């Protein structure tokens, strides 16, 4: 049975319920949505014994606050630098067992953009088109397709019985995911050959700055302008990670809510393994692009998944 678990006091810039991507309706025009930083999201879910893709809160925030309505266990990961329960500092990387009327404040003032808050048993939200991930632009999933705001109450099915406390083992590269600047691997896109040699050279050798224009749909970058003779093409397939060059010459990287088709030139695709790091960059942060073969990108993805897989397996074996 569902119980009201928490009440939002302060939801920051943008908070939504996210979960596994919505993959089965792309050919009907429905974007994927889902986690921007799946590493942090999966770690938050692990802390409370959930499955990797259970629904949780994703928040672009410097500050997030909520009140507990019914006892629950919570895991916080991502770009959080300080957690306080009833004004008392608590460790970042472990499960928190919360009681009715507890107040939790999450601060994010040192690194990264996105915080994840998971509750044991997951939040109860309706699945729409096979996923409970929120797609704000199209009003799908989550809490009626809407962002979370103050006074929203989130339900869960958790029984009051306390779960074990989990701690993220020392030595895992969790904190490596929030650098100020980074280099991401890019696989050449189908229209790369339409760019001039000097444009491609600039694209792969210069640093681009994350502009203030970032959303779950896309991050707009500024830097050297990338020019080409052709500006628009008939609509072609797009998805998260695709780097488009619009006529302005400033690259746009499509993020989790990116549309399924687009008419801008696709200069490249960010390797999946680097998408979480990219998502966590803050406006003003710099990104460089390193050309990479698809085979190498796949290999790196396998290696990244390995420690997450091991973490999950260790506990389910118990």
């Amino acid at each position: 049975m569902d119980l009201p678990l928490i009440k939002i006091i302060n939801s920051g810039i943008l908070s939504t319920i996210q979960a596994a991507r919505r993959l089965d309706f792309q050919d009907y025009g429905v974007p994927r949505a889902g986690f921007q930083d799946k590493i942090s999201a999966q770690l938050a879910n692990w802390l409370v014994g959930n499955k990797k893709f259970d629904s949780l809160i994703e928040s672009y925030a410097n500050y997030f606050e909520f009140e507990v309505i019914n006892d629950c266990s919570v895991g916080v990961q991502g770009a959080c630098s300080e957690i306080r329960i009833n004004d008392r500092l608590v460790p970042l990387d472990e499960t928190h067992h919360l009681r009715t009327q507890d107040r939790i404040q999450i601060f994010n003032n040192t690194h990264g953009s996105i915080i994840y808050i998971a509750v044991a048993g997951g939040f109860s939200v309706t699945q729409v088109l096979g996923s409970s991930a929120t797609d704000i632009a199209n009003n799908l999933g989550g809490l009626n397709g809407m962002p979370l705001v103050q006074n929203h109450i989130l339900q869960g099915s958790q029984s009051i019985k306390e779960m074990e406390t989990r701690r993220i083992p020392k030595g895992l590269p969790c904190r490596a995911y929030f650098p100020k600047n980074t280099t991401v691997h890019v696989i050449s896109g189908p229209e790369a050959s339409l760019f001039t040699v000097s444009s491609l050279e600039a694209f792969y050798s210069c640093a681009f700055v994350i502009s203030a224009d970032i959303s779950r749909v896309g991050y707009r970058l500024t830097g050297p302008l990338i020019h080409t003779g052709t500006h628009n093409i008939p609509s072609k397939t797009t998805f998260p990670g695709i780097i488009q060059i619009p006529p302005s010459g400033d690259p746009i990287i499509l993020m989790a809510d990116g549309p399924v088709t687009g008419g801008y030139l696709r200069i490249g695709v960010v390797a999946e393994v680097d998408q979480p790091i990219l998502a966590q960059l803050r406006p003003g942060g710099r990104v460089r692009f390193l050309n990479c073969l698809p085979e190498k990108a796949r290999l790196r993805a396998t290696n990244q998944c390995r420690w997450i897989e091991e973490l999950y397996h260790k506990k389910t074996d118990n």
Partner: protein
Amino acid sequence: MAYIKWQYLGENAIEISDISSDIQFQLGLRDYLKEFPELGIASFMFTNENLTLFSEKNGFMSIQHIIDRVASYQYEVDVTSSLPLSIIPVCYDKAFALDYRTLERFCKLDFEEIITLHLNAEYKVVMFGFMPGFPYLHGLPLSLAVPRLKSPRKIIPKGSVSIANEMCGIYPNQSPGGWNIIGRSPLTLFDPLKDNVMPLKLGQRVKFQQISKKDFDGFAPN
């Protein structure tokens, strides 16, 4: 088919380009490839003359095998499998046809003549894109091919029937957009909470049927 043109689209997808723009051909190719689950193809996306293949979690088995299969596909027109004709009611009232003047100017025709041409044509759903449930319809008479607006509108009402270049489209929900609006349909084309999420399907034939403003206002939701 001899030479297959394809490119990587990230490490988990490939795009086969310059195939037939006939959606029946493309759907046939998809169904054919689905007969070979060992290829590791999880899903498909159709965009004009391109077919995008997304890999399963563990990747494609071998791209060469996929390309060989694509090359060995024999297209056979199967008339029995063509989807039924779907009739879309549309009201061409000038209050709805936001761009009728632009259309008249470009086509050098009266709006009445434009309506007749639009109604007489038979269309086919060749892709969905831009937003959930937005159908791209082939079959627009060339005399009605009008380029997109120079600057897009911030708000286009739900149901707006629209034209851009050689395509006709319908906005399933309110949205910004740059297509020329010719009329409005009272049909709901995308409802995620229904079993039949979208009444239109890929490959479906479509005709428009004119309704009056009065019929539009009194239209019972589908």
